[in-house]
């Protein structure tokens, strides 16, 4: 049966169909997003409860003082007090020194280990496991190994025994103000390099082989290949890991706590993170600790912003 349609009805119908389709699309979009949001909800709640809330609470606490259970606003008092702490500047000096050493040792070593592993033809998997093994050790166990066996200041210590066998002067390691920081960086690098090596390896394996072949045809040796092919091709990952390394090492805590039993000899191992712990939990100065935490947060956020801006511009 033919259907008679009044003039304009088709247009109306098609408009209403279009509208309902659009509305259905919107509905689907909302539903799809909501499903995504529902999946995200757990993570968002976790972040809110365990990361953002403590962060905001810490910022608030840094402007407060609690005495006899009564909390009052004290403005910048905690900040001026914490900056006047005699260990404040040594802690920053030590932390920056640790970070620089970690950049020289801890950043470069995994990259070269990854290159060496990538160049190998045999036993690649076996060596990868060996390199990654220390990451699987709990950090405290790994550091105790260094503390009691490797860094034993007597001649019986592992490193001292090796130095002695090579007729080199031995060291007091964690008991020497000058050796403390390099010793902490060496232990930290050994503990953490497995993860970085794997990331570098993945990145290295993505470099097209033709580039190396071309370089070899042009007569480039190993160093030239690394300089002209490997480094430019892994620039992005190198930059990212550099920033992550700096942010992580600026918060170094467990190394001084375990290797140096805290401050080390004459504050030689005191880092900013350890000073926060010392104020908060040994000196019962949670407000001062919060102020130092905020100072660290601002410093690292500023560094990250500058770094990202510079690298984005270059790209």
């Amino acid at each position, binding site marked *: 049966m033919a259907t008679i349609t009044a003039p304009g009805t088709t247009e109306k119908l098609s408009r209403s169909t279009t509208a309902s389709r659009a509305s259905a699309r919107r*509905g689907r979009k909302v539903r799809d997003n909501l499903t995504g949001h529902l999946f995200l*909800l757990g993570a968002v*709640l976790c972040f809110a409860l365990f990361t953002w809330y403590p962060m905001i609470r810490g910022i608030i606490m840094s402007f407060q003082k609690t005495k006899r*259970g009564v909390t009052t606003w004290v403005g910048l008092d905690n900040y001026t007090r914490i900056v006047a702490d005699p260990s404040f500047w040594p802690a920053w000096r030590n932390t920056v020194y640790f970070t620089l050493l970690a950049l020289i040792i801890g950043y470069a070593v995994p990259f070269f280990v990854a290159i060496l592993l990538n160049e190998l033809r045999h036993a690649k998997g076996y060596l990868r496991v060996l390199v990654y093994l220390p990451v699987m050790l709990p950090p405290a166990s790994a550091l105790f190994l260094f503390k009691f066996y490797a860094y034993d200041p007597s001649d019986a210590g592992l490193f001292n025994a090796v130095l002695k066998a090579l007729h080199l002067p031995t060291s007091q390691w964690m008991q020497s103000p000058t050796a403390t920081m390099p010793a902490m960086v060496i232990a930290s690098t050994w503990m953490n390099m497995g993860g970085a090596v794997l990331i570098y390896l993945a990145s290295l394996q993505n470099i097209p082989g033709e580039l190396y072949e071309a370089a070899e045809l042009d007569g480039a040796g190993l160093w030239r290949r690394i300089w002209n092919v490997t480094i430019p091709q892994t620039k992005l990952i190198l930059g990212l890991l550099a920033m992550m390394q700096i942010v992580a090492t600026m918060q170094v805590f467990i190394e001084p706590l375990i290797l140096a039993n805290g401050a080390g*000899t004459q504050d030689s191992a005191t880092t900013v993170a350890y000073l926060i712990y010392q104020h908060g939990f040994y*000196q019962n100065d949670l407000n001062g600790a919060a102020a130092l935490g905020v100072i660290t947060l601002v410093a690292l956020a500023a560094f990250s912003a500058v770094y990202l801006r510079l690298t984005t511009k270059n790209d």
Partner: protein
Amino acid sequence: MSAPQYRKAVAFALAAGLGLGLAACSTKSNDESTSADGKTIITVDCMPVGTEKELVANWNADVAAFEKANPDVQIKSVSVGTQCNNPPDFTARLAGGTTTDIFYGYMTDLQQVLDSGQAMDITSYVTKDTIATWDDVDKSLKDVFSDGGKIYGVPIKNYSMGLVYNKVLFQKAGLDPANPPKTWPEVRAAAKKIAATDKSVAGYAEYSAGNTGGWHFTAEIYSQGGQVLTEDGKKADFNNAQGKQVLQNLKDMRYTDNSMGSRQLLQWGDLLTNAAAGKVGMFVGAPDTTQQIVSQFKGKYEDWAVAPLPGQDGLAKATLGGGDGYFFKKGLTDAQVKAGLKWIAFEKLTVGKGQFDYPRAKPQNYPVGLPQPLLFTKDSPTAKAEYDLRKANANVDPTIYSLFENQQLPIKGEPANAQAIYAVLDSAMSGVLTDPNANIDALLKTAEDKVNQLITAGS
């Protein structure tokens, strides 16, 4: 489900999630103070840790006996690992509001507990009715837990420092264990002889990390007749002849005599582990250190003895004292406070019960015969009863502690803001123990400036 329904679901999930989270974070509700059958519930911490099986069994037996005698009370025991010996852990619990109803603290913790606003004023509750031996508890110990005339805690242990020494190592070195050093020069000479017998042994061992170095510096400057702060507490008072002598003694032993072993930066457990392994000849410590060497670090009682703290030219002019007690969390009900006091009285302040149950401890080889904790006023009926019961059940050779016990030195308490000051003084201690060229004057001057700065900042 339509979009608005999804929104509702998300809102509900969000609200439920947040609600659960907040509920998990919230403090306990009031109805936790009584059980379904109407019993008063109290939570108590510092139950012995699981590895100390005999002590845990004793604690559980005490709880059962107490609940039988007090059927209207239920005790929930909480073991918080090393909390009882770990200031950072204690601070975290206090700051997080997760302490138990009746919670353990050091004598130096009162101000911290008051500042956190978590201490309950128990003045009106602490009487002979709740703690039968209360009148015999030493007044100076009660004062430590009082502020502005109000009582905030009950003392349960009191110690003072002496010279702990290894009799076996003394004999090996040709020294007479019955005649230990009485002066620091004698300590130095003995340490040298002990270290000469075995390169791996420290004749004398000392702390210099984790605030324990500052703690021992304080004991040692007291032995010299000095103090850490001026009487009014407004300035550092250790950059003087007595402070220099403390560091000079250590530097001489460490580098001139080489009698302190090579490993320094020791903190509490490090030194005791070495001592239990027979690698330490002498150290400064309280008599209960021998108990820890045996129970926690697997050493032997018969190897050890305790003498009074040495002084520079004769016995020490004073020694450092300290101890601990239990606080009551603010907001407890009347019945909970009374139940808590009854429990402390039963477990910690009654001769023949709990920590003073010597007849039970003797066959368990748990030490009986230690001269501490000294809780009761000398010559009071309770002190006499405790002494008699201890002597009757002693299973530890009494000569271990006789020298220490017979020569009671004047006891001085810890300085105000002790932990912050100890952290600074750790640096001076680690300086002379790790640097052969350490400048003692410079170390003391730096530490003095730092402590004065701390006092100014805190005032």
